[in-house]
């Protein structure tokens, strides 16, 4: 793992192994999710992978009825909406994610601050080209715990 480049492709591959990995700056210690090749804290290029404990909380969210094809192809629509939001993980950084296990029929009942845990799902890819969109990969999601 130490030689994997700090890219989305590496992150996806690690998700496929059910590992939630972030990057960490070896100089100032800043943890970044999504992973980054250059530290946003001190500009260091001295970066390593680090595994997160998968726990976090909801910072903000929405409930979407008309999503991108990646979500439509999973059966989500106006009658079966889904929650996307921003989760802050215990180690500090925030990431955009689908949030499962919340009351999407009554979004006013979904509370900022709700604890969530990481999980992984498989679905198609975000692309305008059907052949690429049909390639399935593992996605990080969070579930209300």
């Amino acid at each position: 793992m130490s030689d994997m480049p700090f890219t989305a492709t590496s992150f996806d591959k690690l998700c496929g192994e059910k590992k939630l990995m972030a990057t960490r700056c070896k100089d100032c210690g800043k943890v970044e999710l999504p992973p980054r090749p250059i530290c946003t804290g001190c500009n260091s290029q001295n970066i390593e992978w680090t595994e997160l404990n998968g726990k976090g909380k909801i910072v903000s969210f929405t409930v979407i009825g008309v999503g991108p094809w990646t979500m439509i192809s999973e059966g989500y629509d106006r009658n079966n909406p889904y929650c996307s939001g921003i989760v802050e993980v215990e180690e500090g950084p925030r990431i955009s994610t689908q949030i499962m296990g919340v009351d999407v029929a009554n979004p006013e009942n979904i509370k900022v601050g709700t604890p969530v845990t990481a999980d992984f799902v498989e679905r198609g890819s975000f692309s305008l080209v059907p052949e690429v969109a049909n390639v399935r990969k593992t996605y990080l999601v969070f579930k209300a715990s």
Partner: protein
Amino acid sequence: MSKRKLGRGVAVAGYGMSKFGVLPGLDCRDMFVDAFKDLVNSVDKGLDPKDVEANYVGCCGAWNWEAQAGIAKWCTDWANLVPIPSTTIDNACASASVAIRNGIIGIASGLYDVVLAGGVEKMTTLPTEGTTLVLATGADKTWECYAGYTFPGLYATMATAHMNEYGTTPEDLMAVAIKNHNNGAINPVAQMPNTITQIMEQRQARAREKGKPVPGWVTEMDFLHDDQYNPMVAWPLRLFDCCPITDGAACVLLVAEDIAKNFTDTPIYVTGTGQASGRALHSRDTLTSIPASQIAAKQAYEMAGVGPADIKIAEVHDCFTIAEVMAISDLGFFKPGKDAATAAAEGKTARDGIKPINTSGGLKCKGHPVGASGAGMIGEVFHQMRGEAGARQVPNMDVNLAMTHNVGAHGTTVVVQIYERR
């Protein structure tokens, strides 16, 4: 950082636009030519097209909506301006403002005296799902679209945060839509030239004609709370919190200050320009303001040597109602939170309010052809500053200082510009 100034002054001497709306049969180049012809006719003392030295065209998605890359070249060609340099600029919904800013920089550098700059977008060629996908690509495809985010979804997430942090209500946001419809209703070039009341009456009349139950709305708020007629798009944002999907083009004529009077006796001068970039939503410290707006505004204010209180009117980026609420606090007109959220409901941002915002009807009613919208904003301030805004002309105010604020995507690009009429 030292306070930067333009190397030499730049003025707007003309403005033109195509129709904004659903325009079947018109490609980007056709709409751009309509805007260019309108611009040529707008120049008081005339424009010889041979004097135009460069063309900057903002366009966000012609490569997809129309399967055409490098659209500026074809706009230049069809406007019969070949061989002047053509530059296509994609900064999502801020594309036209970035194009115009680059035109300004081109003149300020001394390289050009006369520049055409604006934008074009053709958005109605795909089904809703396709347009949703193309618009979402304005966000971070790798880390936001990945999470199922759509464009309305990102602004909805900011609205949720605003409500959670400040107690902002859906009704506060609805008041922004009502105000912008009141302005759009008297804008002859608006895509949606109706008040909410007029839209209600149309829907009731249609139900009556068809022998269907007639909705019993009494107030505009009744209509806006109707789940059937104003459905949720991305909770807590409903359909009337969102701007429409629009085809259209718009452009401005930029000229060096020292020759501006050759084109018109009433040019408007660009006295401040700022541009900043922002990260994905999850990588920002705040979800209730747009940091790049604040930075771009600071640059523009410092360059112009004025402050928020000096600005008479502003066209701000209201792709969603919550965007206008954040804009008017990010630009310093109102305090963040309740003050900004209730400004529309309290009439402060109406045409006769203390700070008229989006007198054109905003993107909400004028329409939002994403790559062209920044040019459309300048059109409104150009007309207001020259006293040419007709029924929309703000009362009891000499509009000698105005601002445009154009956001790309959900705040990943922001351009703020200040204009002065001397």
